[in-house]
């Protein structure tokens, strides 16, 4: 099934080597991952368009971390996010991942693994592993992170491709909890309307 959702179609499968150019996009897309608080794992938050990785980081900060608490953020070029096949029905996406054999000489590197555990929700960071290629990372993820419960899609991102929040950038979100005016809950329109109606009834 070919999805109409650009968030799905823009992600390359591990075997696609060509980076597809979107006719409508001014700049290429980058995926944004956010850690809402120190106790929670990173989660996929959305995408930004930017001319490069550093600009993507800068733009993602305001596009995705304006309202809720945030302790850290990172971005990666969308073409560097490798995705498994999407599962259908009761299938577990892990079961769709084919075995790969990597040459013994291949250099190993670290990958971040994300799992889509509920349809329509964000992909959540499941952990890190060492692999020789995105395909190998997928296969290793199947061995290491498959708990038997259904997941709908698996993502693998080489850690070296990520623009992380540097240690000395953690204060970027320092004053965010105070900015309640950016949240609808800070505007008690109902009380004012009630007061206004009561006043007009008295007249």
């Amino acid at each position, binding site marked *: 099934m070919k999805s109409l959702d650009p968030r799905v179609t823009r992600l390359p499968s591990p075997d696609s080597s060509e980076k597809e150019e979107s006719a409508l996009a001014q700049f290429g897309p980058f995926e944004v991952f956010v850690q809402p608080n120190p106790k929670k794992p990173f989660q996929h938050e959305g995408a930004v*368009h930017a*001319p490069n990785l550093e600009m993507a980081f*800068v733009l993602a*900060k305001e596009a995705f971390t304006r309202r809720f608490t945030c302790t850290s953020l990172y971005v990666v070029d969308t073409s560097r996010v490798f995705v498994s096949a999407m599962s259908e029905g009761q299938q577990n996406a892990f079961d769709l991942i084919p075995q790969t054999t990597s040459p013994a000489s291949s250099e190993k590197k670290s990958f971040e693994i994300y799992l889509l555990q509920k349809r329509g929700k964000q992909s959540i960071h499941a952990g890190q592993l060492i692999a020789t290629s995105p395909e190998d990372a997928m296969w290793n993820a199947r061995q290491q992170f498959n708990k038997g419960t259904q997941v709908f899609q698996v993502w693998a991102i080489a850690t070296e491709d990520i623009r992380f929040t540097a240690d000395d950038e953690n204060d*970027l*979100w*320092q004053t965010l909890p105070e900015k309640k005016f950016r949240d609808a809950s800070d505007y008690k329109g109902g009380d004012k309307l009630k007061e206004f109606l009561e006043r007009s009834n008295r007249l």
Partner: protein
Amino acid sequence: MKEEATKELLYKMADDQLILGHRNSEWTGFGPLLEEDIAFSSMAQDKLGHSLALYQLLNQMGEEPPDTVAFMREASNFHNCIFTELPNGEYDFSLVRHFLFDAAEIVRFEMLRESSFVPLAELAAKITGELRYHNLHAKTWIRQLGSATEESILRLQQSLTFSLPYALGIFETSPFEEALMSEKIFAGEQALKARWMEKIEETLKPTELRLPSLDNIHPVYGGRLGKHSEHLQPLLDEMSEVFKIDPTAEW
């Protein structure tokens, strides 16, 4: 003398933040790309927040409440530098102004973290992260466009050359300079300017942009003393238009 000097410092800082915050907010909905529109609007909102915090400090020192000082003063009672009130023009100018002003702003607040006026030192510490983001944003754009295409380099260079006399107006000497320094409230505009120069040179270094020699540039002063360009009063009229319909209204 000490109190008067502190107030003058707070007013010029608050007015800079309010006026530039308002100017930058004029880009909301018109930014060059969606993500940038959001980021620039968000930083404009931060600036209004900084002005509010500074007006609150003034209020605690006996001045009128923040809304009154923000919306009810005439242009001649504002102490912002003229740089902040200039119309937005094209995005290249707005970006260069953001870069030059915010570099001075972060250095000023870094210096104020040492201030003997404790409420100001505390505010300076509190907003570090916001200022850091503003500077990261400006630096990243300047580095990107300052070495991208012939057009982007040319446009930034023209805006940089145009902006410098106004940017130097940020550092107009205060009548209370000596008092601020001797009381260790603020280490002074000249010290700020020297550190600002280093900062902007460092950002421009890897780009194709060239910083003209500042020796031959005549700074545009006057703003700190209430002598403004023709652009400030229309800005104030528009900004306070709704407030003035009913200054007692609650929002």
